[in-house]
């Protein structure tokens, strides 16, 4: 049986663990709020951007810009978004599982796959399995700067235009609420061939400067904005997942401390009883 000192030592060690998990939860909560503010600020802009694009990118105008053009798909690029750091529950595992599934599906259908990753966890995952990566970006999970997003977006667009791949999907955690994050798949490129929800009447827009020039500025911008939004969503989800994970860890540490304290008290009581019996026994022996 564990001695009193052993139990005491375990209680202390779990106590300090719970202190750390509680602190991490607090840090995540603060980071979550900050990232969330940025995401909510961006949402109206990216929604409006999409609206403008939808009203402009009318079918039959695919030749206007290479990013609008739908090519027969041979190679599909999958961009997997994970975090750099762990300790965030199933956050990364969920994304990686979904990515793996999609890759197998597409392979079975006979498409070529190319994989890129954002975040250290995804990179390490594919490296361990000896899967070649086209590109791996890391170190972005702190404060995502817009210029870093621009860099990634321009690489993706260049590779699309020079036909390294014919379609680009993002796999990431979409933020629903602090408790719920959904793994989502989003087609980023080509922009063309978007389904028009309802047959909205097509307006004849006046363009100034010419339509081509507006497209050549608006389209790359919209890709950047979408990527930026996705990365922010993933970031917010990461902190939310970490917060939940740390909350659970703190709770189970507390449960364990309660259980051990009970055990400790029982053991202490047993020692006292034993000592008492010894004393009583000794006194009895002297009496006679």
């Amino acid at each position: 049986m564990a001695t009193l000192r052993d139990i005491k030592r375990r209680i202390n060690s779990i106590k300090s663990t719970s202190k750390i998990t509680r602190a991490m939860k607090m840090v995540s909560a603060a980071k979550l709020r900050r990232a969330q503010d940025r995401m909510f600020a961006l949402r109206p802009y990216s929604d409006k951007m999409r609206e403008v694009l939808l009203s402009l990118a009318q079918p039959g105008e695919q030749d206007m810009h290479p990013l609008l053009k739908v090519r027969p798909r041979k190679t599909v690029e999958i961009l997997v978004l994970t975090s750099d750091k762990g300790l965030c529950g199933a956050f990364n595992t969920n994304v990686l599982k979904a990515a793996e599934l999609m890759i197998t599906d597409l392979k079975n259908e006979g498409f070529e796959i190319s994989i890129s990753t954002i975040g250290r966890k995804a990179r390490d995952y594919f490296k361990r399995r000896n899967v070649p990566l086209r590109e791996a970006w890391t170190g972005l999970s702190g404060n995502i700067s817009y210029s870093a997003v621009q860099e990634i977006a321009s690489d993706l667009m260049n590779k699309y235009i020079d036909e390294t791949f014919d379609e680009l999907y993002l796999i990431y955690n979409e933020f629903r609420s602090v408790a719920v994050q959904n793994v989502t798949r989003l087609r980023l490129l080509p922009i063309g061939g978007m389904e028009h929800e309802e047959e909205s009447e097509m307006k004849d827009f006046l363009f100034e400067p010419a339509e081509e020039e507006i497209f050549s500025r608006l389209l790359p911008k919209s890709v950047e904005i979408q990527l930026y939004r996705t990365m922010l969503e993933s970031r917010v989800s990461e902190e939310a997942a970490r917060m939940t994970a740390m909350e659970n860890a703190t709770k189970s540490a507390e449960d364990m401390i309660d259980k051990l304290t009970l055990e400790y008290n029982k053991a202490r009581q047993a020692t006292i009883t034993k000592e008492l019996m010894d004393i009583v026994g000794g006194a009895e022996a002297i009496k006679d």
Partner: protein
Amino acid sequence: MADKLTLEIVSPYGPVLKEEVDEVVATGSEGEFGVLPGHVPFVTTLKIGMLVCKKGGTVSYVFVNSGYAEVSDDRVLILADSAERAEDIDVERARNAMRRAEERLRKQEQIDFARAQAALDRAMIRVQLAEKRGQ
């Protein structure tokens, strides 16, 4: 036909403005343009400049740092890289930025000329707007 325009300005840093107005004048990349209710559908790129909106007898100004404008169905939608109302402009900061940009342009060393020029434009228009506000 409605006799009002809905002006909506959004930037990546959040919505800036949503208002019913009578008239909007903005700086397009090809020149200034005005929008009144009943305007034809119209799309243009915007350069760094000011946006004027008139409502009743009052005139208000917004700083717009390039972007796009879409006009359709009596709605003016501005997608700006950044934007701020005249009353929110930090004059001190703009003046400093203007000085820095001028400095850089004067020295003409290894600088990205276009970037410095853009910084100067931004600062100048901000200061102009801030002065208008003071009147």
